[in-house]
C-alpha cells in the first residue's frame, strides 16, 4: 500500500510529462500553423496588391480596343477609359471650345468629343482624295452619353497622331481611258444616226 502513492505519483508525473510534451508538441505545431497562416496571409496580401497594382496599371493604361468591339461590349465598357486608333474622316466640327472628330478604324466609326486644341493636332481628314491622319486616342467611352442626348461616343483626353495623312493620287487605268474614248465615239455616231431616224418616224 505504501508503494501505491509513489506509483500513482510516478504515473501522474509521467502523465503530466506526456501531457506537457503533447502540449509542447501541440504548441509547437500550433506555432507552425500560425507561422504558416501568417505567411499565407502575406502571400494573399501580396497577390492582392499585385492584382490591384495591375488593375491600376491597366486603368492607367486604358483598355485597347477597336470601335466595333466598343459597340459589341458597350455595357461592359460604358464609362471606362479606352484607347482606340483610327483614321480621322470627313471634317472637324467645332462646337465652342470643343470639337467633334469622327474616326474610322475599318471596323466601324465613332465620334470623338475633344478639346479644340487637341482636335487642331489633326490636319488631314480622310475623303476621296485624302487618307486621313491615323489618330491614337485615349478617352472615356459612353454607351449612351447623357451630355450628348444618348449617343455612343468617346470623350477624348489626349490625341496622338500615329501616322500622318496624305494625298492619294488618282491613277487612271489605260484600258479605262481607251474604252471611254471608244464608247463615247460610238455613242456619238449612234446618236447621230438614230436620232434623225426616230424624229422622222415620229413626224410621220
Amino acid at each position, binding site marked *: 500500500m505504501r508503494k501505491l502513492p509513489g506509483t500513482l505519483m510516478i504515473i501522474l508525473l509521467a502523465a503530466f510529462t506526456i501531457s506537457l510534451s503533447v502540449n509542447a508538441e501541440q504548441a509547437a505545431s500550433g506555432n507552425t500553423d500560425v507561422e504558416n497562416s501568417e505567411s499565407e496571409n502575406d502571400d494573399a496580401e501580396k497577390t492582392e496588391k499585385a492584382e490591384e497594382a495591375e488593375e491600376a496599371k491597366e486603368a492607367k493604361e486604358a483598355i485597347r480596343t477597336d470601335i466595333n468591339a466598343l459597340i459589341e461590349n458597350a455595357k461592359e465598357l460604358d464609362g471606362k477609359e479606352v484607347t482606340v486608333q483610327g483614321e480621322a474622316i470627313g471634317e472637324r466640327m467645332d*462646337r465652342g471650345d470643343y470639337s467633334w472628330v469622327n474616326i474610322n478604324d475599318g471596323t466601324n466609326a465613332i465620334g470623338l468629343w475633344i478639346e479644340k486644341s487637341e482636335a487642331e493636332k489633326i490636319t488631314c481628314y480622310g475623303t476621296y482624295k485624302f487618307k486621313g491622319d491615323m489618330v491614337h486616342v485615349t478617352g472615356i467611352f459612353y454607351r449612351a452619353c447623357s451630355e450628348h442626348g444618348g449617343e455612343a461616343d468617346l470623350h477624348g483626353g489626349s490625341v496622338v497622331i500615329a501616322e500622318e495623312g496624305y494625298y492619294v493620287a488618282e491613277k487612271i487605268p489605260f484600258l479605262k481611258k481607251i474604252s471611254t474614248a471608244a464608247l463615247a465615239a460610238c455613242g456619238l455616231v449612234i446618236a447621230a444616226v438614230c436620232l434623225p431616224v426616230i424624229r422622222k418616224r415620229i413626224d410621220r
Partner: protein
Amino acid sequence: MNQTEKKSYSLEIISYYTGYIVLISSSLMAIPALTSLMFKEWNPLLDFIISMTVSLAAGLALVMFGMRMKKEKPDVQWKHGFAVAALSWLILTVLCAMPYWLSGHMKSYLDACFDVMSGFTTTGVVLLQDLDHISNGLNMWRHILTFIGGQGMVVLALTFLVKETGGAYKMYVGEGKDIELVPNVKGTTRQIWKISMIYLLVGTAVLWVIGIAIGLKPVSAILHAIYIFESSWSTGGFAPNTQNIMYYHSLIYETAAMVIFILGSFNFGLHYAIWHGKRKEIIKNIETQSFFITSFLTVILALAGLARLNVYPDAVAGFRRVVFNVLSAHTTTGFGSIYARQFALEWGDFGIMIMVIAMLIGGSACSTAGGIKGLRVGIVCKGLIMDIKKLLSSERRMKVYKFHHIKDQILSEGAIKSAAIIIICYIATFGVGTLLGTYYGYPLADSAFESASITGNVGLSIGVTAPGMPAAMKVYYIIAMYLGRLEFLSVFALIGYLFGGVKKVCANYRER
C-alpha cells in the same frame, strides 16, 4: 389585226416605253459626271461617261425596236403599263449599277445591283465598302437614285412627255401611284415634281444653314444638305458617311431631317390639297389619322419598353433616340441615330418588335414612303369596325360607310379586299425573308427586323445586311425591295406576261 401581230405589238409597246424611261433616267448620270468634273475626280468622271454611254445605247436600242408601234398606234393596255413599269425598274437597276461597280467600292456586281435597288426603292441599306472615301460624284449618284426612286422613274419620264398618251396613266399606276392631282397624268406628274423641287430648294437651304452652324465648311455643308434632303424627302436613308445621321452629332440637324422625312412620307395629294388651301385635310384624311395614331402608339410603347430596361440614362436621351428611330422606321426612311448592333444588343425583343411593326406599317400611299401604307391599314381597320357595327345593328338598317381621303369615299367591300390582299402579300414577303434569315443561322429577332426593314423599304439594319451575307439572301432582299416598292401587282403582271410568252413559245414548238 391577227393574234401574231397583236403579240408583236405588245412587245414593241413594252420595249418602246421601257426604252423611253431608260433614256430619260440614264441622262441623269450627267449630274454626277458634272459633280466629278467640278471636284476634279477624273476616275469617277470616266466611270459616268462609260455608264451613261452604255445606258443610253441600251435605251435607244429598246426605243428603236418599238418604233413600229408608233406608226400603228395600238391601244396600251393595263398589262403593258404594269409590265413597262416593272421592266424599266429592272433594266435601270442593272444599268445604274455600272458606276458603282467601276468605282471599285463593291465586292461584286450583285452587290452593286443591291445598292441601286436599295436606292431606287428608297430602302437605304448599303453593301458599298469604305463609304467614307467615295467620290463626290458617286455620292451624288447614290442620292439622286434615291431621290428619283422616291418620286418614281415612270413619273420622271412621263413629266417629259411632249403630248399625253393613252397608256401614260396605266404606266403611272403600274409604279404604285394612283393619285390624280389634275385631270391628266402629264399634269399630275409635273405637279409631283413641282412639289418635290420646291421642297428641295427650301429643305436644302435650311440644312445648309444648319450645316454651317454645326461646323461644316460651306461647300461641304451644301453637299451634305443636298444629300440629306434627297435622302429624307424620298424616305431613303442613305447618308454620305458610315455613321449615317450620327456623323453630324447635332439635335437640330436630326430634327430638320426628321421634319423633312415626315413630310416626304405624306401623300402628294395631301401636299397638293394643303397648298390649295384645304388645310383641314391634314386632320380629316384617313392616312394622316392612321399615321398619327400608329406613330403615337409605337413611340409610347418603345419608350416604355426601353425605360423598363434602363437603356438610356435620362428622359432627354431616351426621347431623342427613341422618337427619331421609331419615326424613321415608321416613315420607312431608315436614318439611324444609334448603331445597327445597338438595336440587337440594347433594345431587347420588345423594342425590336415595335420597330418591326412600325416598319411594316410604313408611310402614306402615293408618297415616297414604302411599307403596307397608312391608307390600307386605315381601310382595313374601318372595315373591321364596319363589320362589327353591322353585326350589332338591325338587319333592316342599311348604312353607307365612308372614309375621307382627299375626298369622301365609300368604304366598299372591294376596297377592303384590295387593301387586305396587299397586306397579305407584304406579310408573306416579310415571312419568307425572316425564314430565310433563320435558315442561314441568324437569330429570329434579327432576321425579322431585317426582313421587315427590307420589305417595308426602310433601310434600318440590325447588322444582318453586310457584304459577307449569303448571295441567296442578297438576291431575295433585292426581290423583296422591288416587290415592296412596286406593291406587287406590276411585278406579278410582268411575271405573268413572261410565263404567258414562254407558254406560247412551247405550244408553237409542240405544234411544229
